[in-house]
């Protein structure tokens, strides 16, 4: 009997049933997609890192190192499980050609290496150790699509040629956000080509489980072991890997939450409307003595059936969309092995989403139970009118939510695409950046470049920032080494989450990770040991930083009276040229002279290109979903408004109103809430959207984030698309008006 009732109800209300199922399916699809993507990403990164045996800590270094000292250190530290020194032959980008492309414009440090002896393996596309033969090269997989490479193509380094025998996944440097890329060659080839590049070392450690990595780093630095390059930990590598694809997942997540909210609201509204229509029947059932619980069960059974259909459809759609969205993820990290885990978690998410929808339905049903049999049998017009208002509100809400859906991912995209975004990552707001790293005499090279810059009249402004490691005295009595970037930080400032850049010699800015670890905030003080003297600094600012392990500090240059003989770990120069000067020409000139100058805009494009492509895809998906939702919901509710007002439309016709004049009234009734919705969507998208993205980006390391708004997109294109979708839906919805006959009102069918 219940089955018959449900089936007949679905048959008679096809549109409402289909729309309800669509809402349930899209919610299930998006939420399970978010979970599938997230679990897939994390598990495939973890799988890759596990198989590649990624080191827990690695220290980059250029120049001499003493093997005995290293062996001694390892012997004294039982927490070291394994250690090794990997060589990395840093090549001049201009000398490398991959197939038909030159890497001269690459902002990455490209170099050669041989397979790690004990760990830190470069793996082939089956996540196995490739066997490299002489004359062969394995290329980082992230370059395969970028340079349209195939197995058998040729890689040229100077005059030498290598055959591309395959592609490798590098758990450490896979992400374009990692600044170096390793090409895998045979040992004999490495020895033969050694003279063409500069050899750097990766001093790598695998530590026992549960080891405090920070304490180990401090101990390493305290021993004065080789450390003139950045120090990187395993969590940072994992974060770098997760960050690029994580942004796309963030967009899908925001979309799925908004869609779930829309679904909850629309389904609830559809249910209330159905119940209003069924009121007499419900009243009759109550009068006959059928209890509230039975009536609720009757409705719930129908929605459970619809939600089972919706969930199945949603899961199918999620698995269909998953492949194109995870294409890059699979290329970089491999296919996740945790199929059962991802499968069961996505199933659980679908259950949760549908459960939430069914709970909201149950809540609405319980509220309606307060109505007695008599009230239901003799319903009043007042309640009808309340729902009519609700319909207009709902149109406004759905258009607002749709606008929000289009706006937030778009704003996120334009923010990431903006050169300013790097300032949230700890990189200065300049045009050009020159890094002096891992050379024998960093200070001397820096001085030479500075003297050239001083003479160069094409430069508008520049600054030199030099990083040294100083012992810092923490309040709990411990001492740790703090990588401090000295120089004028006001010329090309980074974005500060709190406070400002150091302006006085006694001021120090800390990265968020350090501020959190030390328990310090603006106004607190910290002592550093510089040139044998303890100097007390006041914390003037906190900034987010994902460079150099994210644990850095910034301070001004010291007075001349404090002789600072601490060796410079690396120097960075930020430059802005005068407007008339060609940046490309200037950079070419300096690069030719052996200086590694990088255009920050190119750096952003190259570093975040991968991420931007994915976000761009997610923006398109979000826009498509938003347009579809606006169209379907507005069409549905306008049709319902026309249906509810059939009597008055018929009366108007009987009085002599034309179809056109009635349509105009209903066009305005449907369109005005849509306009209000667009305005609300723009406001909430720009204000709340920034907050939501900020919270999530903070977990990725970019703190204090502000939207960079593409005005023409945000204030012209998106509102136009939303209004067009709503307008077309209203127009189609009111077409029904012409089918209402003037005599209907005379038949008393209100």
């Amino acid at each position, binding site marked *: 009997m219940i089955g018959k009732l449900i089936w*007949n109800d679905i048959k008679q209300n096809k549109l409402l049933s289909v729309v309800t199922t669509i809402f349930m399916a899209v919610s299930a699809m998006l939420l399970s997609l978010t979970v599938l993507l997230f679990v897939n990403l994390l598990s495939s990164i973890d799988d890759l890192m596990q198989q590649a045996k990624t080191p827990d800590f690695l220290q980059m270094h250029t120049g001499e190192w003493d093997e005995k000292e290293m062996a001694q250190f390892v012997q004294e530290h039982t927490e070291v499980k394994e250690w090794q020194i990997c060589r990395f032959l840093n090549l001049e980008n201009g000398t490398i050609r991959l197939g038909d492309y030159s890497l001269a414009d690459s902002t990455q440090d490209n170099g050669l290496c041989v397979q790690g002896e004990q760990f830190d393996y470069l793996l082939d596309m089956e996540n196995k150790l490739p066997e490299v033969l002489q004359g062969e090269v394995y290329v980082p997989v992230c370059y395969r699509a970028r340079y349209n490479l195939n197995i058998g193509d040729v890689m040229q380094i100077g005059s030498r040629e290598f055959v591309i025998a395959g592609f490798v996944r590098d758990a450490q440097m896979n992400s374009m956000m990692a600044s170096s890329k390793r090409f895998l060659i045979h040992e004999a080839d490495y020895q033969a080509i050694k003279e063409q590049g500069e050899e750097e070392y990766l001093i790598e450690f695998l530590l026992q489980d549960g080891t405090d990595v920070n304490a180990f780093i401090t101990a390493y630095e305290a021993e004065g072991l080789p450390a003139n390059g950045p120090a990187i930990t395993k969590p940072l590598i994992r974060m770098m890997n997760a960050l690029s694809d994580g942004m796309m997942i963030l967009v899908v997540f925001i979309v799925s939450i908004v869609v779930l909210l829309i679904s909850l609201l629309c389904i609830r509204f559809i249910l209330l409307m159905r119940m209003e229509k069924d009121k007499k029947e419900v009243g*009759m059932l109550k009068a006959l003595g059928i209890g509230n*619980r039975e009536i609720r069960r009757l409705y719930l059974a129908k929605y459970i059936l619809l939600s089972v259909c919706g969930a199945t459809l949603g899961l199918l759609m999620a698995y269909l969309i998953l492949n194109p969205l995870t294409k890059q993820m699979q290329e970089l990290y491999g296919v996740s092995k945790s199929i059962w885990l991802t499968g069961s978690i996505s199933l659980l998410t679908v259950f949760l989403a549908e459960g939430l929808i069914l709970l909201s339905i149950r809540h609405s049903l319980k509220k309606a139970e307060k109505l*007695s049999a008599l009230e239901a049998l003799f319903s009043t017009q007042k309640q009808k009118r309340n729902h009519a208002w609700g319909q207009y509100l709902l149109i406004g809400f759905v258009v607002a939510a749709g606008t929000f859906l289009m706006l937030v991912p778009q704003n996120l995209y334009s923010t990431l695409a903006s050169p300013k975004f790097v300032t949230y990552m700890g990189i200065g707001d300049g045009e050009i950046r020159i890094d002096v790293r891992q050379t024998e005499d960093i200070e001397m090279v820096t001085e030479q470049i500075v003297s050239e810059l001083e003479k160069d009249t094409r430069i508008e402004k520049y600054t030199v920032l030099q990083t040294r490691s100083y012992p810092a005295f923490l309040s709990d009595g411990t001492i740790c080494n703090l990588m401090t970037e000295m120089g004028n930080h006001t010329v090309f400032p980074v974005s500060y989450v709190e406070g400002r850049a150091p302006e006085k010699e006694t001021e120090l800015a800390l990265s968020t990770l350090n501020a959190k670890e030390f328990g310090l905030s603006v106004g607190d003080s910290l002592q550093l040991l510089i040139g044998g003297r303890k100097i007390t600094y006041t914390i003037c600012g906190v900034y987010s930083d994902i460079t150099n392990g994210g644990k850095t500090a910034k301070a001004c240059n010291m007075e001349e009276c404090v002789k600072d003989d601490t060796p410079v770990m690396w120097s960075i120069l930020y430059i802005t040229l005068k407007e008339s000067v060609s940046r490309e020409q200037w950079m070419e000139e300096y690069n030719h002279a052996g200086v590694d100058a990088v255009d920050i805009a190119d750096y952003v494009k190259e570093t975040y290109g991968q991420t931007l492509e994915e976000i761009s895809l997610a923006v398109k998906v979000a826009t498509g979903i938003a347009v579809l939702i606006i169209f379907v919901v507005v069409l549905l509710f306008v049709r319902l408004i026309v249906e509810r007002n059939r009597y008055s439309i018929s009366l108007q016709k009987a009085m002599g109103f034309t179809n056109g004049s009635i349509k105009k009234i209903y066009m305005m009734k449907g369109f005005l809430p849509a306009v209000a919705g667009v305005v609300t969507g723009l406001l909430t998208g720009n204000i709340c959207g920034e907050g939501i993205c900020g919270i999530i980006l903070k977990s990725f390391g970019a703190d204090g984030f502000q939207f960079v708004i593409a005005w023409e997109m945000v204030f012209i294109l998106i509102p136009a698309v939303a209004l067009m979708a709503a307008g077309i839906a209203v127009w189609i919805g009111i077409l029904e008006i012409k089918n209402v006959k003037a005599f209907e009102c005379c038949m008393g069918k209100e």
Partner: protein
Amino acid sequence: MKELLRVENLCKNQILNHVSFTVEEGEMVAIMGPSGSGKSTLLYNVAGMDQPSEGKVWLSEQEITKLSEDDKASLRLHRMGFVFQQMNMMANLNILDNILLPAMQANKDKKEKRKTKAELRKTAREWMEKLSISDLAERSITQVSGGQLQRACICRSMMNEPEILFADEPTGALNKGAAGEVMNEFIKLNRQGTTILIVTHDSKVASRCNRVFYLLDGSIRGELVLGKVTSETEKQKEERLNQWLMEMGW
């Protein structure tokens, strides 16, 4: 005869004023009165569909007015039957399924001696046979006449073998011929032992009952005993009732 329904000092806001009466087993009682006199309100309060502001109602030994909403619903399902003026039925079910609806629910509630679906269908068909609508079983509610629909409603109300049948203007929406047919069915049921309480403003309908209460402004102003089986013809009864109503000021 045993008392089946007792109503004591029933009040509902300004509509009912201290209404008291009793109905005995096997009786067919009518409540008459002009529009707005409170007839339907009285019926719904007596049947437990609404909660009176004052007063008590008993069905046999069970005090209805102190029961919870769920218990009242259960009482209506198992011990009462209803026929409404508007012939309310589920639009999504055919005639047979509509008749079966309360019976299936009541059967589900039973802890023992549950009937099978086939048995219930057999009972429904028997009732349809008795009320001459057996050929309408598979029809939709929009495919039958008002009289046929009301007879289907009577079948539905009888499926759980109620102790008392409440009817609110059962012939109000029917033409003269159909109204007569429906009333004949009520009389048949009453003769078979079903107690019936009818609310009506039609003296033709009321004249076929044993007793008639006259309700005005929420109070019972008079009671007329028409007798169960007398030598009076229906016409004579109707004339006596009309005379009495005129005396009551209608």
